[in-house]
C-alpha cells in the first residue's frame, strides 16, 4: 500500500479512538467508533487475499451493527430521559442494549463468534492492532457508564469459560490468541463495576502481553503450532523466554499476568462473590492448558532438522526487535511494580 494512503488510514485509526476518548456526547462517541471501523477495513484487506477480504467483510458487518446498536440505545435513552451524556445513560432498557452493543464491539462471550474468524484472516501486524488498539475505544465508553449488574457478570463468566474452551482444540495461533483475548476481556468486564481502575490496569497489561506475543510470532513468521517447533533455530534467546510470556498470559505467579488476576480475585472476594471468583479462577485453568501446549511445542520438543536450517540463528534478523524486547520485559517483570501502578491509577 502507498505510504501516504497508509498514513491517512493510520491517522483515521488514531483520530477515531481519540474522538471517542474525549467525547461526552453519545453521537460524537459513535462518530469516533465509525471512523475507527472505516479506517481499519482497508488495512485489513490490504493484501486482497480472499481470507483477508472475507475477514474484513465480517468485521465490517459486526462493527456496523454494534455501532448502530450503540446509537439506538443512546437515542432510546434520549427519548425517555432527554439526556445525551455518556455517564447519564440511566434507563435500564437502553443500558442493556448498550451493553450488548459494546459487547459485540469488543467480542464478549455470547457475541464473540466473529473474533476468531476475523483474526484468522489478518496478518500479524493488523491482528495486533485489532486485538489491542481497537479495544480501547469501547472500553473507554464502558468505563464511563454505570451498567447493569447481572448481565455484565453473566457475560463475563461466559466469556472466560468460552475463551478457555474454544481455544482447546485449535492449531492456528491467531485463533488461539483470539480466544485468549476473549478470556481476558471476560476478566476485565467482571471487575468493571467494582473497580474501573483495575479494569484499566488489566487492559494495559493485556496489551503489553499481546504485543510481545504478536511480535514474537511475527519474528518467527509462524501462524500455526507445528511451525512453532522451528523457532529455536531462529532465535534461541526469545525461544527460551517465550514460554514465560505464554505463562504470563495464562497468569502464573511470578510473572506480570498474575497481578491483574490476583487483584481481580481479591476484589471479587471483597464484594462477597466467592462463587463467581472460584468459577473464574477455575476457568483460567482451561486457558492455561493451551498456553502450556504452545510452550511445549515451542521449547520442549526438538524436531529433527538439516544443518542449514538449524544454524539459522547465526544470521541476525532484519526486523526491528526493540518493541519485542521492551514488551517482553514488561510482560515478565512488572509484578513487583504493580502496587505502585495501582496507586498511580487509582
Amino acid at each position: 500500500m502507498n505510504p501516504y494512503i497508509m498514513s491517512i488510514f493510520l491517522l483515521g485509526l488514531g483520530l477515531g479512538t481519540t474522538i471517542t476518548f474525549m467525547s461526552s456526547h453519545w453521537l460524537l462517541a459513535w462518530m469516533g467508533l465509525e471512523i475507527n471501523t472505516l479506517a481499519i477495513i482497508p488495512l485489513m484487506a490490504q493484501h486482497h487475499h480472499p481470507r483477508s477480504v472475507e475477514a474484513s467483510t465480517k468485521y465490517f458487518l459486526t462493527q456496523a451493527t454494534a455501532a448502530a446498536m450503540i446509537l439506538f440505545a443512546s437515542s432510546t435513552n434520549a427519548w425517555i430521559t432527554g439526556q445525551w451524556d455518556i455517564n447519564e445513560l440511566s434507563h435500564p432498557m437502553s443500558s442493556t442494549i448498550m451493553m450488548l452493543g459494546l459487547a459485540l464491539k469488543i467480542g464478549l462471550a455470547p457475541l464473540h463468534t466473529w473474533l476468531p474468524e476475523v483474526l484468522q484472516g489478518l496478518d500479524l501486524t493488523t491482528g495486533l492492532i485489532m486485538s489491542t488498539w481497537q479495544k480501547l475505544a469501547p472500553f473507554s465508553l464502558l468505563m464511563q457508564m454505570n451498567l447493569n449488574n447481572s448481565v455484565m457478570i453473566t457475560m463475563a463468566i461466559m466469556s472466560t469459560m468460552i475463551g478457555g474452551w474454544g481455544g482447546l482444540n485449535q492449531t492456528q495461533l491467531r485463533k488461539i490468541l483470539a480466544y485468549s483475548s476473549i478470556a481476558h476481556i471476560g476478566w476485565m468486564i467482571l471487575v468493571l463495576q467494582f473497580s474501573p481502575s483495575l479494569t484499566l490496569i488489566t487492559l494495559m497489561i493485556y496489551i503489553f502481553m499481546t504485543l510481545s506475543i504478536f511480535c514474537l510470532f511475527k519474528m518467527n513468521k509462524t501462524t500455526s503450532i507445528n511451525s512453532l517447533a522451528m523457532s529455536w533455530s531462529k532465535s534461541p534467546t526469545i525461544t527460551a523466554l517465550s514460554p514465560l510470556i505464554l505463562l504470563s498470559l495464562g497468569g502464573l505467579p511470578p510473572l506480570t499476568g498474575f497481578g491483574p488476576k490476583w487483584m481481580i480475585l481479591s476484589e471479587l472476594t471483597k464484594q462477597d462473590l466467592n462463587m463467581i471468583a472460584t468459577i473464574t479462577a477455575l476457568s483460567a485453568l482451561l486457558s492455561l492448558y493451551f498456553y502450556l501446549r504452545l510452550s511445549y511445542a515451542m521449547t520442549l520438543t526438538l524436531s529433527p532438522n538439516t544443518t542449514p536450517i538449524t544454524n539459522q540463528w547465526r544470521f541476525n534478523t532484519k526486523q526491528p526487535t526493540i518493541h519485542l524486547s521492551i514488551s517482553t520485559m514488561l510482560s515478565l517483570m512488572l509484578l513487583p511494580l504493580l502496587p505502585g501502578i495501582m496507586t498511580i491509577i487509582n
Partner: protein
Amino acid sequence: MTPVHFAFSTTFILGLMGLTFHRNHLLSALLCLEGMMLSLYVALSLWTLQLNSISFSPTPMLMLAFSACEASAGLALLVATSRTHGTDRLQALNILQC
C-alpha cells in the same frame, strides 16, 4: 412510550433481526443495515422536532453523512467479496471457519 417511539424502535429491531437471522446475500445484509440507519435518522430528527431544540437539528444530518460513509464502505466490500469469492452469498464466506 409514544407511538412514534414505538414505531422507530420496532423498525430498528426488525432490521436488526433481519440482519441477524437469515441472510442469503451480502447485499440483503447491507440493506438491513441501511434500514436500521434510516430508523435512527427518523429517531434523531423526530427527537429534535418534538423537543423544538433547534441547536440539535444538525445531528441527523451528521448521522446521515456517517451512515452514507458506512454504506459506501459496505458496497466496496461487496465488490471486493464478489471479486475474491465469485458470489455475494454469505454461505460462500466460509474459509475462515473453525
